[in-house]
């Protein structure tokens, strides 16, 4: 096992052991609670905005667009959930997720007129 692997696995094991935030670059960079909120709550808003936007932009009849965009809200939420934990800092995650949610929802309301 190479030295870098040993370092990585020790960092990993320390990370996995900690139910509360401890001093590693990743956790300190955001705070676990913030990421959870971003992933779950923010993710739902992002899914909401995505569904709203797709319902008026998909090139299908109104009913079909509504059905498909409701279904596609799930992958949107999933992506947001993964992004919330994969992003470099929690702040970036929030900007991306909340920003995406607000933009898509606003655009949807404009287009729905």
């Amino acid at each position, binding site marked *: 096992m190479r030295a870098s692997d040993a370092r990585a696995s020790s*960092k990993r094991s320390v990370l996995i052991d900690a139910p509360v935030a401890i001093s590693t670059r990743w956790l300190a960079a955001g705070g676990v609670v913030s990421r959870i909120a971003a992933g779950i709550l923010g993710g739902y808003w992002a899914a909401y905005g995505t569904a709203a936007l797709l319902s008026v932009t998909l090139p299908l009849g109104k009913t079909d667009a509504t059905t498909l965009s409701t279904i596609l809200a799930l992958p949107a939420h999933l992506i947001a959930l993964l992004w919330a934990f994969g992003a470099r800092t929690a702040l970036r995650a929030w900007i991306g997720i909340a920003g995406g949610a607000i933009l898509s929802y606003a655009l949807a309301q404009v287009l729905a007129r």
Partner: protein
Amino acid sequence: MKATFTLSMSWLHTWGGLVVGWVLFAVVFTGTLAVFHHEIEEWMRPELHAEEMSAARGLRVAETYLKHNAPKARSWSIALPEDGLVTVRSGGGRRAKSAVLNADGEVVTSRDTAGGEFLAGLHANFRSRGFGTWVVIACGLFMLGAIVSGIVVHKRIFRDFFTFRPGKGQRSWLDGHNLVGVATLPFQIVIAASGVLINPVSIMPAAVETAFKGDDGAYFDSIYWGPYRREAAHRPAAALPLPELVARGEALLETPVESLQISHPGDANSVVTLHGDLESRLTKMDRWVSLDAVTGRLLDGQLDYSGATTTSGVIVGLHLGTFGGAGVRWLYLLLGMASSAMVATGLVLFIAKREPRHAGKDQAWFVKAAARINVFACAGLIVACAALFWTNRLLPLDLQDRAALEGRIFFWVWVVCMLHAVVRPPRRAWTEQLAVTAALCLALPVLNVATTGAWFATYAMHGDVVRAVVELTVMIAGGLLGWLAWRVGRAGKQAPASKARPRVAVGEA
């Protein structure tokens, strides 16, 4: 940067998996049992046996009964015979009355039991429409997150595809978790996604709000506009015989008819709506035709649906798994058990990794608590499910609210398991609870004979395949759980030796 992404996915998988896993096990396990909820319900209602009934006979029996008992009702509905019994309903809404009839036209009743429906209800929303639905949906979402993060983290997914090394402690738990996880991957992705999306508009109303300005009714009506409705003419007229109407319907639908509704029976404006077989199809969208009861003329119908609607129908169909008959249901059962094993091995793996490391440190309280929660989240639930079969037979038949009582006992059994898991050391708790379940399952035929006078051999001899197979399956499950209990107990006796050589967490995940 790449290492950080893997680390964060690993964290999400471990902690998201742990917290959600305790609830997810219940969802996955009850869902697996619910694949055969109809058959379990049949076993739980031993009073309902009837000979095969042809469709024509069923229609005759149903019509006679309805003419006799509800001649002035606004609508009748008849479900074509299934398992030798036909179900009829008259009236609509709250005042609807229904009855189950056998081939002689007699009403058949069975014990008031929670039945297989109880398990299906637990799986769908923990039997609480509002909050429970959100909990189950959230579990499904996290399950998908755990799947994706699990794949990201499991770097050697192809190299380890066939790897399983038993008897090596934590390594084996990891191998086992990876094995059942990867093997059932397509199944799990499909089931988790389709489960979350089973009724998407109810949890994600955004699209309806935006495109239909919140008008749910307009949206649903544009997809499915139900049976053709028209006012009664208030003059009597003879309708075509039901078998003839059913035959016309089958010709139009190109599938067998599953059920029919008759509006304003006996009236000149009576409409008969025939619904095509839904259970064996993959797309769960109701195909129907409405015929004028007097002339047989086609009034309205829906035979095809748009691509998007068909997609939503396929999503439901894939989740329910009723499309391929018994064969596919068995596949779903086996894969569902494997998925439950995946959740359980994941939970046990969490403890297996930390137990040697944290003996005596501050963080030990969390590990100790998690170890105990694992026991009643998994084994405790299985005990409660086995108890359901027992209360079905044991409770006196004329009890008030018998079904509700069975449900309450289910939860009390689970609570007792929780207390047991708190009081006993985790390994002993596992062994004891698994052993209790095994005993309950293996003794089922004895209980059955004692309370109803029949057991699976009797069922088999009378050609009652469904009940025989249910009982046999429960017994086999009991045997497996007993073996598991024995293995856990034996491994526990060897544990002190292996603890002396703590294993370092090296390698994947």
